């Protein structure tokens, strides 16, 4: 009778056989994830299936820690690992070393997932964004000590404001140690009390920029009490750091422009304010002066001196009017006088002289109207129309009338 084997021995034997197979030792299998179970121990159990078959898979915690994304039911993946036998159950399974998302690629998948997760946590919410100070005087920079990014930032910042203090935290920005280095840099600069922190690096592949898609970096940016400007790669590169930062700059150069105000503009602004302030004060004073002048002339009108002046003016005017009135009256009187004169002329006795009528007067010119006033020998004056004659009384005789 042939030798009898225990179940365990058979399973172990098959396991050994399989482990000696080169192909099965390192194999990549494409399939869709199902029966996914993230165990509390950190191990991940799942099945890989396609339309014809199913295969059990396990990824131990030590390997699962290296996963950049979280696996999901139905996700198309490529699992690389080895095929081995689980002796207790007599089952073979795929021991996964790494899992890659098929199609979009694993980094894209990881990016999408972290973005979704942090977005759900509210880390990108606008209400958490701190305003970037307009006039930062101390600027922290977390980036590589060498390279274009740091040069660009320093050049632009010192051109815009040479009086601003730049503090660099030389960080590792790609590879294994990058995320811890960037996180340390943010925390160290936060302690120095700068006004704003620029976190970034120059352009590169998605793998090169990966540290800025790490959750730890995102959390450090979010937790930082000082406003953070992200400046990763080129304008077309978007990282998780960009979403969580208080402000995304398309490039490191742009970050320097956003963080550092142009000192010339600042001084100009200062001067403009000073000019406006002075001008306003001057015009307020001028307005008061004009008002004072107005009041003063008003006062002058009301003052006794003003009254006096006005009375004098009125007196003068009245005098003038009186004068005019008087002259008018005078002229009228003159006119009437001349009319009377004409009338009197018309009735003058001289005109009636002639035709035998004369005017008789004594020597002194007094008119004589009666013979009784005459005596013999008395001299008489006889006024004729065209001359005077002297005569002597010879005889008087009174006639009966």
């Amino acid at each position, binding site marked *: 009778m042939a030798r009898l084997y225990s179940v365990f021995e058979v399973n172990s034997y098959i396991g050994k056989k399989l482990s000696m197979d080169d192909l099965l030792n390192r194999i990549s299998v494409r399939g869709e994830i199902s029966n996914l179970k993230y165990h509390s121990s950190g191990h991940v159990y799942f099945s890989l299936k396609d339309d014809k078959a199913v295969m059990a898979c396990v990824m131990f915690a030590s390997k699962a820690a290296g996963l950049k994304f979280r696996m999901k039911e139905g996700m198309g993946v490529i699992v690389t690992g080895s095929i081995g036998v689980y002796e207790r159950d007599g089952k073979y399974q795929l021991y996964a070393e790494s899992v890659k998302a098929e199609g979009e690629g694993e980094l894209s998948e990881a990016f999408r997932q972290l973005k979704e997760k942090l977005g759900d946590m509210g880390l990108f919410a606008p209400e958490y964004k701190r305003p970037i*100070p*307009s*006039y930062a*005087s101390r600027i922290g920079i977390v980036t590589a*000590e060498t390279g274009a990014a740091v040069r660009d930032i*320093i050049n632009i910042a*010192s051109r815009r404001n*040479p*009086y*601003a*203090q*730049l*503090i*660099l*935290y*030389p960080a590792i920005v790609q590879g294994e140690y990058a995320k811890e280095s960037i996180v340390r*840099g943010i925390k*160290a*600069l936060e*302690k*120095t009390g700068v006004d704003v922190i620029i976190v970034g690096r120059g352009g590169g592949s998605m793998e090169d920029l990966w540290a800025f898609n790490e959750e730890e970096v995102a959390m450090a940016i979010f937790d930082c009490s000082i406003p953070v400007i992200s400046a990763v790669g080129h304008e077309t590169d978007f990282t998780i750091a960009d979403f969580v930062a208080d402000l995304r700059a398309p490039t490191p150069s742009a970050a320097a422009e956003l963080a550092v105000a142009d*000192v010339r503009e*600042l*001084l100009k*602004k*200062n001067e403009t*304010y*000073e000019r*406006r*302030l002075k001008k*306003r*004060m001057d015009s*307020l*004073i001028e*307005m*008061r002066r004009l008002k004072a002048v107005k009041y003063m002339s008003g006062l002058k009108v009301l003052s006794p001196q003003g009254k006096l002046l006005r009375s004098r003016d009125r007196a003068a005017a009245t005098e003038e009017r009186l004068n005019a009135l008087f002259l008018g009256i005078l002229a009228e009187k003159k006119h009437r006088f001349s009319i009377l004169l004409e009338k009197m002329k018309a009735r003058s006795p001289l005109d009636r002289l002639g035709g035998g009528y004369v005017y008789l007067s004594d020597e002194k010119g007094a008119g004589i109207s009666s013979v009784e006033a005459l005596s013999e020998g008395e001299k008489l004056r006889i006024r004729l129309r065209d001359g005077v004659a002297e005569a002597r009384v010879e005889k008087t005789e009174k006639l009966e009338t």
Partner: protein
Amino acid sequence: MKKETEKTDNTEEKGRSLEENFEIIEDTIDRMEDEDIPLEEAFKLYQKGMKLLKECNDAIDRVEKQVLKLNAEGELEEF
């Protein structure tokens, strides 16, 4: 009581950023736009504005800075 408010005012002034100062100056000028403002008050606003402008000006220390680097010990050294 009054002294206390003045004290807090002073401490606030020290910690004010340039942009906050500019905002206050802007507001000060706005308040002077009122033509009927008593001259005495206008003078006070003017003096306050000029003082703030001086602070803004003084905040720019006009000393060119070397770029500093934080070393592993958390100390600052020249870059």
